[in-house]
């Protein structure tokens, strides 16, 4: 009986650990990361929502530096990407340089964000924003009408991992 109880406790603990591990990295990034603002646009303006998620695309998803890098490296595809971001005068962070490994030196006013190249775009794990059922219509409409004013507040930790915190469209804040 005791042996069986021991195994049961181990199994329940394992399930609890798995549950803790699911958001573990995001919690770490949210707690320790530096907040930055990114310019955002819907992935597809005609189909913003995918189920309960808004599909987001960032200015840094397909930056000019990506094409420059590919030209310099004869079209070689990047798998993992380390993008150096620099804060602009408008408060938005823009792509400064792109690397295929962690950059050797990062200027003080810059931050490194890690991504993966997928079909000519770079994904940072912040492309889906969950929106509750009753707010879907409002956010979708707002994103469609004012997508040039849409920004996302993102936190980036010291390993380059990003976590999406809230969506800002003009002076309206959407946080779920």
């Amino acid at each position: 009986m005791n042996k069986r109880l021991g195994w049961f406790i181990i199994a329940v603990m394992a399930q609890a650990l798995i549950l803790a591990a699911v958001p573990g990295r995001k919690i770490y990034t949210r707690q320790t990361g530096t907040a930055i603002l990114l310019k955002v646009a819907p992935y597809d303006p005609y189909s913003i929502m995918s189920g309960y998620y808004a599909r987001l695309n960032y200015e840094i998803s397909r930056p000019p530096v990506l094409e420059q890098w590919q030209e310099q490296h004869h079209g070689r595809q990047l798998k993992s990407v380390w993008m150096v971001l620099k804060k602009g005068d408008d408060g938005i962070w823009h792509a400064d340089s792109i690397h295929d490994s962690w950059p050797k030196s990062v200027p003080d006013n810059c931050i490194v964000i890690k991504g993966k190249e997928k079909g000519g775009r770079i994904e940072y794990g912040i492309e889906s924003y969950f929106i509750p059922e009753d707010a879907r219509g409002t956010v979708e409409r707002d994103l469609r009408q004012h997508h040039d004013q849409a920004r996302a507040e993102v936190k980036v930790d010291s390993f380059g991992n990003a976590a999406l915190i809230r969506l800002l469209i003009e002076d309206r804040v959407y946080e779920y």
Partner: protein
Amino acid sequence: MKKNFRISNHFREQLKQEIQSWQTDGIINQEQLATISQKYQLDRLSRERKNYLLFAIYVIGAALIGAGVISFVAAHWDKIHPVPKIVLIAGCMFTCHILGFYLWKISGKSPRLGHALIVLGTLIFGANIGLLAQIFHIKENFYNGLFAWTIGAIIMAYALESLPNAVTAIIISFIGFCWWIGDNPHAFCYYPIVTAAIFLPFAYLRRSVLTFIFSLLALGVSIMVCAIIDAEELWAFSLATAGIGLLFFAWGLLSERTDGFKFFAVPAMVIATILTAMIAYISSFKEIARESNFDRIGNWMWTIPVTACYIIATILWVSVFKSMLSNRRLRWMAISILVSATLVFLELVVRALWPSSDRIYNFYFYIVIASNLACLVLCIGLIASSFFAENRGLFWAGILFAALIIITRFFEYETGLLLKAAVFTACGIGLILAGVDFENYLKKRRLINE
């Protein structure tokens, strides 16, 4: 009687019926009857039957509640702040587990309900993974969540020897695999190795036929799916299926002669026979053979599990060959599977090795001949075995497969309605006559045996 998994309920049911007649015939006395009844706990059979039914109802109920919880999560339960939301749903999971364990293992008052609650706890665990991904806006591949769920379910299955948890783990992992292969069509397929390393040992430890069947299906189908998705050619699928047919049948033969695991023999052999028949049938179509593109073998990752399959199958066949030949009941069936699957294998390998040779440009014709021959051999094997094993199921499987082949070939090659009518009529008459003849044979055998 100690909990003995080796003795099936089917055997106990039969024994219960038999010992009554033994006592009437004076073979055993009242005391011996009581001893046997006690040893095999025959008086508990009807209660156990009721308990199984109750357990099935509880598990179905648990699955429905689990589905409700998952839908609840999917509907985005946004009125509550994330922290109480997490506490609430994690609390639901722990409550189900702890209450279930108490009822099942500690108080023992309601073991079936307790077990069902633990299954519900595992289902809620899966829903929790989805909920946490939603709360933290995690954009991960969906299959990663399913694999995490699988790990939690299989650990619980091993910890409590819980069959429904193991079956849940296999089903969830297979859905995850299907998703994964869609995203990674040319990656090395780890899933069959994981299945063989994690799920099959559970089936053996728990001596669970159900888990064994699910594991074999997950193992076999994943190798077949990997082959067709990676190679993008039907012939790769055929090659994989023939190999799995060979492997599973040999596995069945090995189980047949292994004490304590004989009940794994029939499921393995049935799955192997269905797969071999399916692939021989598919390969026998003229158009499919002609359209197969053997020139392009760009991707080769799929060949690793398929080659491993053939190597293990060869080792198993060599080890069981002698005993198979001396087994009157299974000999013909085994030989027919070996010949059919080998024919499919050889026709594909020979064609693949000389893809663009002009001399064998019309090789598809030989593929069709060989595949039809493989179907025929299988029919003969099934029917011959049915006579030796006095098994009605094998007989009808063989006869119906033969009828299917004849009708298909007529649809494929012959368009004359009159001839078709004649063939269908002949098939029908043949089926009825064969059935009557076989039933007479069975009756005669029964009389001789008596």
